[in-house]
């Protein structure tokens, strides 16, 4: 079976390199440090009058959290191509970690907006979530991520089996919603949304290419899936 997974075995490169010991530290640092910097920056700016997040720390923090969500989505979708192209099979377990990070930052982005930016103005929240298309699109992205995060446990994977695979195919919708939300939210300079749209297009295009080459390949394969004995 392993030979049939994601392209043919003859083309898949293998690596004798095992997971480096520092790798987990690097992953967790990459996930926890940016968020901590944003929170510490906001507290410092509001209470001490520093300008770590600039003159409008609430707005800046909101933007940074949104961009981090997109970046962890890139990392999530990059895991499988990296594994296939470099033969780093050990990287596969980080896909869930990055996916959870994306969901965590997406939720933080939304809560930041609701609590700190519009400050629980329920009237505005209602208008935004019904009439402002870019906010609706972003919120849908978060709604799609939540069930994926909640079913990311080993127990859920084991219990749901093929339904898990089907559910987690929704992952591919999230970056589309995310960049659309970003694209629609900028006033004029769409430079960064264009860059990330191209990155996602490349990552999804790579999958499409491989899926076409090998119809038995599964886009969403839980990392705990048993390999060839």
């Amino acid at each position: 079976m392993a030979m049939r997974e994601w392209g043919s075995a003859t083309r898949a490169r293998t690596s004798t390199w095992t997971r480096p010991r520092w790798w987990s530290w690097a992953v967790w640092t990459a996930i926890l440090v940016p968020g901590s910097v944003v929170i510490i920056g906001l507290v410092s700016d509001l209470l001490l009058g520093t300008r770590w997040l600039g003159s409008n720390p609430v707005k800046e923090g909101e933007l940074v959290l949104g961009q981090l969500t997109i970046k962890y989505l890139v990392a999530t979708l990059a895991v499988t191509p990296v594994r296939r192209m470099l033969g780093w099979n050990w990287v596969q377990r980080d896909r869930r970690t990055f996916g959870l990070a994306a969901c965590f930052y997406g939720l933080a982005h939304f809560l930041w907006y609701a609590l700190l930016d519009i400050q629980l103005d329920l009237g505005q929240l209602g208008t935004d979530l019904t009439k402002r298309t870019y906010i609706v699109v972003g919120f849908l992205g978060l709604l799609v991520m939540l069930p994926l995060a909640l079913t990311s446990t080993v127990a859920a994977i084991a219990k749901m089996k093929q339904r898990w695979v089907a559910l987690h195919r929704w992952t591919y919708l999230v970056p589309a919603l995310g960049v659309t939300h970003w694209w629609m939210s900028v006033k004029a300079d769409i430079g960064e949304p264009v860059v990330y749209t191209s990155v996602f297009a490349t990552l999804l295009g790579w999958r499409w290419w491989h899926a076409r080459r090998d119809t038995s390949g599964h886009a969403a394969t839980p990392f705990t899936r048993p390999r060839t004995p």
Partner: protein
Amino acid sequence: MRIRPPVPDDLRSSAITPESLYLTRREWLAAAGLTVGAIAGAGALLPSQADAQQPLGKPFGLQPDDKATPWADVTSYNNFYEFGTGKDEPADMAKGFKPRPWTVVVDGLVKKPGSYALEDFMKAGRVEDRIYRHRCVEAWSMVIPWRGIMLGDVLRRADPAPGAKYVEFTTLYDPARMPGQRSAVLRWPYTEGLRLDEAMHPLTLLATGVYGRDLPNQNGAPLRLVVPWKYGFKGIKSIVRIRLTDRQPATAWNVSAPDEYGFFCNVNPTVDHPRWSQAKERRIGEFLRRPTLMFNGYADDVASLYAGMDLRRNY
């Protein structure tokens, strides 16, 4: 020499400093000075504390709790796409910009067109310091002590011809000096426009300074428009041409997104931007949002300009 009363005759009552505020002006200024001083202490560049405690000008349309936004924010949080689209980019990318010598052309439907060196251009009026509220269309705001002359004085000197109904402003177009113009995020050069009566209004200012100093490059050096009852992007920067016309001029943001930015762009809490509410604003330096005021708090002075107009349609 012509002597002008400190407050133009046609200015309405709210533009005149309320007596209570006037009587407490020393406390007010001290408070403003304290804020600025605190920032300076934190290592930001600005005027020495002594500078900051000098009178910054007459407050126009301010509310009792309006305090001047610190220099560090006024000069580091800028929308000036000619020097980058990030808020902090203009302060960095405009560092090498040389705003002098500078020439301003006044032409179109005027009896006395002219091309002026900036120094001569400024002789049209009396330079004064005025503290205005500043409301960005992005729902943040500041309180800024500008220095400048009334646009009306410039127009009176040029002597509008009978058919003149609008004023068109144009920013310098020079991609070598304004690197942001090398990418087509907006139609360059940036243009803006006012109706002639808006332009002649005594609150409408052509500023050459802020906080009693020459405008920093990122704030639109050497000459920018300030129209305090309109969203900030109407305040076109680094102006090289002022042209009077008989038809409504095209404006950069209206060309870019006509459904989002109209010609008037008056601050109006009841007319939302299509993508966000304009009912409240975040004052830079404050956490809790403030309600946005009709015409940014200048309704008594300017509402009559728009009598009978549907402000929802004329956004």
